């Protein structure tokens, strides 16, 4: 049997179908509820899925990922609050449309744009993943270290307002990865005699703490009596023929932008949505309508943010470098199942790769169907009292973490990570680079030390792939730094001009 047929047949297993249904339902719910991100939901679910087979577990995790990308648009349109960061750009035109009494139309249009975005990006995954993986098979220590540097640099560049804080967060992640035994000599480092630390920090515990507990603690700190009320008048639901026609161009622009952004390591739907919206506006015949309730703007933002999914999946599966923060968590789960994402995955488990693509496509189509017919019901979740939510998340984080090792000390690590996470959140340090640093720290250290022993630092210049990857890292960091300095100067000039007037 061909691996593709074998992989797709695995999806007919009732437990896999149940896993997908569960994942889509959970994903839609967490997406709809502002404050719970897809990363947090996948991190929590990853502790549940460790006892399942890889296909069953991936069915749950990938379906949450897809479902959340549909659910998060609902509060963005109805209450101007993105359900997850990926729906930030949806608020630009979605909410003005809702205020004009076109919420129903905006929700349906957004659902279609999101689905088309994911499906287009999955075509790219199907076409590009195998060649990229074959190319990556040539990678040695120099290339792997350079790849880690590129991934970290890009995530630092895009995830923080302050580059300095982003770099420090990435270094903190790399430092956390040194806790445990040395990857080459097995000497203990920073274990302080605790067994729980001797086998390095539990990745899932740290991720659940940084994304789950930290979010709950932050919400507790800043919660107030103000209740967001969704726009109640949904109006007409289905677009007219003429309206469909105007959406074609922004749909193409959004899908192309999103797929490219998705392939870049660590760049997610939030960045893609903003870039896609901006590019579609620049190329539109009616740029003045953007931000005031433009269907073109809504379609461009949604298709761009969701089409990162296929790109992120390509980078994660083909290179072993997480395409975004959800993929970083998923990569951790795959390692626990004994699967090493990267070029070897395509050679050793081709059927699993086909299953992954199948899960993404099926969950997208099912999510679209649910999105079109169950939107009214999902809106009610916005009324769920916060105290129930906080208590539920806390107990799920505790039990979920305990399930990974059945050791109560892992729960202590998770709670400590949560405390560190809330301090980081309140002080402007992004959690993404910490997770990436922790995940890739061992890979970076062992490959760098091997590379330096083999041929010294000069090897990075004589090795073309490593040199190109490092050059991209420098360009990404330098470009961001230059852009921010320029934006700062513009802002200062604008302030001076205002003072003179």
């Amino acid at each position, binding site marked *: 049997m061909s691996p593709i047929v074998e992989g797709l047949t695995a999806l007919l297993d009732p437990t896999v179908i149940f896993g997908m249904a569960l994942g889509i339902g959970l994903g839609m719910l967490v997406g709809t509820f502002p404050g719970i991100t897809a990363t947090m939901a996948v991190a929590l679910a990853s502790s549940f899925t460790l006892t399942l087979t890889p296909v069953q577990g991936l069915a749950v995790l990938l379906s949450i990922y897809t479902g959340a990308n549909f659910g998060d648009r609902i509060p963005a349109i109805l209450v101007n609050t993105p359900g997850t960061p990926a729906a930030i750009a949806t608020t630009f035109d979605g909410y003005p449309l809702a*205020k004009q*009494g076109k919420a129903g139309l905006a929700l349906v249009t957004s659902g279609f744009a999101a689905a088309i975005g994911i499906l287009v990006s999955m075509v790219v995954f199907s076409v590009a993943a195998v060649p990229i993986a074959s190319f990556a098979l040539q990678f040695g220590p120099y290339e792997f270290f350079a790849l880690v540097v590129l991934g970290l640099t890009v995530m630092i560049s895009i995830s923080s307002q302050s580059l300095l804080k982003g770099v420090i967060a990435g270094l903190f992640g790399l430092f956390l990865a040194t806790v445990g035994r040395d990857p080459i000599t097995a000497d203990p480092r920073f274990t302080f005699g605790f067994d729980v630390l001797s086998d390095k920090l539990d990745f899932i515990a740290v991720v659940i703490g940084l994304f789950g507990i930290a979010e709950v603690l932050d919400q*507790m700190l*800043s919660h107030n009596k103000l209740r967001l009320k969704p726009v109640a008048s949904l109006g007409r639901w289905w677009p007219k023929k003429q309206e469909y026609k105007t959406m074609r161009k922004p749909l193409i622009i959004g899908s192309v932008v999103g797929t490219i952004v998705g392939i870049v390591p660590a760049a997610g739907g939030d960045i893609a949505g903003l870039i896609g919206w901006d590019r579609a506006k620049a190329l539109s015949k009616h740029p003045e309508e953007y931000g005031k309730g433009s269907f073109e703007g809504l379609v461009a933002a949604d298709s761009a943010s969701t089409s990162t999914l296929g790109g992120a999946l390509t980078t994660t599966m083909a290179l072993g470098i997480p395409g975004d923060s959800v993929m970083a968590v998923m990569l951790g789960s795959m390692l626990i199942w004994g699967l090493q994402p990267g070029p070897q995955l395509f050679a050793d488990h081709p059927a699993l790769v086909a299953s992954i693509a199948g899960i993404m496509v099926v969950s997208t189509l099912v999510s679209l169907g649910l999105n079109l017919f169950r939107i009214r019901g999902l809106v009610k979740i916005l009324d769920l009292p916060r105290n129930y939510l906080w*208590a539920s998340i806390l107990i799920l984080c505790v039990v979920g973490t305990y399930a990974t090792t059945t050791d109560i000390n892992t729960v202590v690590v998770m709670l400590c990570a949560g405390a560190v996470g809330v301090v980081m959140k309140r002080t402007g340090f992004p959690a993404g680079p910490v997770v990436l640093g922790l995940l890739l720290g061992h890979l970076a250290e062992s490959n760098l*030390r091997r590379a330096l022993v083999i041929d010294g630092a000069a090897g990075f210049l004589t090795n073309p792939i490593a040199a190109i990857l490092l050059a991209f890292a420098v360009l990404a960091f330098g470009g961001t730094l230059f852009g921010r300095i320029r934006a700062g100067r513009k802002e200062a000039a604008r302030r001076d001009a205002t003072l003179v007037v």
Partner: protein
Amino acid sequence: MNAVEPSRRLASEEQAGSKALAEGISADELALVEEMEREVAALQAKPSRKLERGIGITLTVLSAAGLIGSRAITVRTETGGIDPRWWPTVICSVTLALSLMLVVVSLTKPPFEREGLEVTNHDGWRRLMWTIVLSVLYIVAWTVSENFVVPSVVLLVAMMWVNDGRGLKALVFYPIGTVMGVYLLFHTVLRIPL
């Protein structure tokens, strides 16, 4: 011509507004939504130079401690050069340098914007402190009693009480139902010993 344009724009905006209202949303609802937007904007956390300075100084101290800790790592075979101490030393040295830069930036540049963060409040700090205390007590109770169910129900009751949950639903049905659900899922279905 310039004098005419604003009035034309105003008129067209008014027309667009009445058209939007005609499509379904009421004027009352629009006013409510706009009021809500203003309230949300007022809750935005403000930049703070003092906070940035505190972060820089704390990080400098922590990274210096990390550097000392890195050099103190005991290795079984002293090889010198690129040994198990080398990588943590590199990381802590770079972090120390960047932390000092952060201190300089906090003294010379305007503080960073705190977009996406809301202001904290007194009730929030009370909730946070109680959650930390309850979590510590919960871990101790679970470890000492070697029982998951009772400490978990007590934790949820206490969490609901601290967060203004009152009545049978919040203090009885929800905690017992949730712990039963979690126990069934993890212990019975997934066979994880709780």
